[in-house]
């Protein structure tokens, strides 16, 4: 599995720094909401020059209500009802040119955010595919956006309606966007996770490349569905798909500095690390050296964590470095080994988090402890329904 850097606010310098460590394994998904045309066309080729793969998320999910001025000022932004007819074709032409300008070799095709997977939405998707097939993509391979609401994803019939239709669509790659229930950062629904795994596995078994956008470390379990890549970034609104960020009046920034303990699959505020220090268990939260991140070392060297000069920049780079290692190690040589590994990671984190919680060390809303059961439930469901096929066809 591969990690794409999902761009959001203030991501360019992080990408430059991380790409120096990662080299040609760097891959980015640029965000027109957060970058001007000038920035996109300068930064994209710069990343390509560093050997990175560059994609662009057009972010046309709900064009009728999107009014974020940075996004709607791009030349490709549709001026009238979208996803069919001349408006789509004109927008697609502009989008093709923009993708060429940023040095992309593949183009993410916009897709309507599905409140429900129904005949109308399916017709829209088919219309998009038809228009893209008729367009000259200048040699770029299309990656089709499939963006689903939580209501659509937890509906078994709708998920399978989508899978049935995907068999008939002539597409090879999907940029899968799954909105979390209740807008939460961490997912607390076994059904949502189970259907996410089922959908992704169904797509993979159907021969599609699957890139899942807007992910946090909680979605590492997607490895068991054989997905090709997940995308993650700095702020919460690029680790969990947030439709509101495209609406100016609902775009709210929350700033806080967090520390990611990758082996515990949880994030902590510095205050929680201070408690761990006071309780003499801080070492348990220290990131193992195998993750290759020194961005957070100072937290464990300082007289106490809050006295370290650990800042937002360190926090983001530490998170992404650790996540990259986790992503790259998530898929093992057999399905069973991959499943066992995911369960072992979750079990280990569960045991440790319970013990830490008992000592007053909690990641609050970013502590995975209460969510681990949902991940394990989802893995069990997938294993029952698709385990035998996945095992036989591994690696997908």
């Amino acid at each position, binding site marked *: 599995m591969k990690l794409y850097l999902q761009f959001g606010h203030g991501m360019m310098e992080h990408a430059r720094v991380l790409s120096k460590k990662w080299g040609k394994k760097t891959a980015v998904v640029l965000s027109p909401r957060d970058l001007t045309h000038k920035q996109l066309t300068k930064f994209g080729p710069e990343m390509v020059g560093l050997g990175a793969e560059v994609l662009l998320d057009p972010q046309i999910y709900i064009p009728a209500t999107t009014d974020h001025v940075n996004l709607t000022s791009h030349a490709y932004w549709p001026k009238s009802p979208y996803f069919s007819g001349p408006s789509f074709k004109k927008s697609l032409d502009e989008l093709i040119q923009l993708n060429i300008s940023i040095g992309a070799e593949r183009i993410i095709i916009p897709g309507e955010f599905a409140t429900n997977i129904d005949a109308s939405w399916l017709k829209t998707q088919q219309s998009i595919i038809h228009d893209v097939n008729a367009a000259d993509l200048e040699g770029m391979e299309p990656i089709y956006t499939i963006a689903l609401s939580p209501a659509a994803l937890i509906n*078994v019939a709708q998920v*399978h309606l989508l*899978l*049935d239709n995907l068999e008939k669509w002539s597409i090879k790659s999907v940029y899968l966007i799954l909105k979390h229930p209740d807008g939460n950062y961490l997912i607390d629904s076994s059904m949502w996770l189970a259907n996410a795994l089922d959908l992704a596995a*169904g797509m993979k*078994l*159907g021969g599609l490349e699957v890139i899942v956008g807007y992910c946090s470390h909680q979605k590492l379990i997607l490895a068991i569905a054989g997905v090709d890549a997940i995308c993650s970034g700095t702020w919460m609104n690029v680790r969990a798909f947030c439709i509101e960020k495209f609406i100016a009046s609902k775009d709210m920034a929350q700033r806080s500095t967090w520390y990611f303990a990758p082996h515990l699959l949880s994030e902590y505020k510095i205050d929680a690390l201070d408690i761990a220090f006071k309780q003499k268990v801080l070492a348990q939260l220290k990131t193992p050296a195998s993750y290759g991140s020194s961005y957070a070392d100072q937290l464990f060297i300082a007289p106490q964590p809050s006295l370290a000069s650990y800042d937002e920049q360190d926090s983001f780079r530490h998170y992404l470095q650790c996540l990259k290692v986790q992503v790259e190690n998530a898929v093992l040589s057999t399905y069973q080994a991959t499943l066992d590994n995911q369960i072992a990671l979750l079990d280990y984190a569960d045991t440790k988090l319970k013990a830490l919680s008992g000592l007053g060390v909690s990641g609050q809303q970013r502590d995975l402890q209460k969510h681990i059961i949902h991940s394990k439930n989802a893995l069990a469901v997938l294993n*029952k*329904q*698709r385990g*035998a*096929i996945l*095992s*036989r066809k591994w690696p997908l």
Partner: protein
Amino acid sequence: MSGWPHPEAFLQQCFPALSQFKFVAKGGQKAVYSAMHPTAGQVALKILSPSDTPERFQREIMAIQMIDAQQVPLIIEHGKMPEPYEGNFWMTEEWISGLTLREKIEQGPISNQLILKVATDILSVLIKAEHHRIVHRDIKPENIIIAPDESHCWLIDFGIARHLDRTSLTGLYMPCTIGYAPVEQLDVMKSHIDTRSDLFSLGVTLYECVEGVNPFIDSATSLGEIVDRIHNMQLPRISRDIDVKGEFGNLLQTLTQTRKNHRLESAEEALKWMNDINIEGHVE
């Protein structure tokens, strides 16, 4: 035409080239006789009920001829009955002798070797059917014949087979056998029918070979209860290993998933799996 079976004199008049007519059975929409053919030897003569549609009979013939598999009885001749019985269709088929899989199941435990043989042979038919976009739609123990020496098995009765590129002949209902047909058949989701529907029915049939019962049907008090089980119950894993590595159990679990997207994509994939199982061999 009235009265089944037909009088021998009547049959001799209609089919002068055949001889030694012997009534075998009347099933569904046809009567079956054994007869001697001058070149093919013993054949099965099937005469269609006048109530059935000729289109269906023609499609059955077409399906069998297109599939052209060793495990499907060969059609020798077919045609329409002469006046005054115009409209009644007939065909002669290669004669096959043996017991139905239903009879074998009722006789007692079926050997692991035969179970793997049935799976492999029927999947070989389904691959050919899949190639021609034909779905049998009625795979069940009654429609599988086992040769007396168990060296061969045949899939019979393509009477409700469907060519996926042709117009449905059944309107708003879908013929099937409840207890073996998958959800998409029971729910008359015609556009959802494909080889995976047959794979489900084959999976249930093979499960019954192993366990001696069909859990969808066993102890059910009504058809509604069976339908409900098909919708909401996953077959348990078989209670014993049939092959050395226990892969046959995995294959059956996959074939019998409620949602067709959870099943194997094609008969070809299923046969590849079976071939791997056969290489490892059955449990003695």
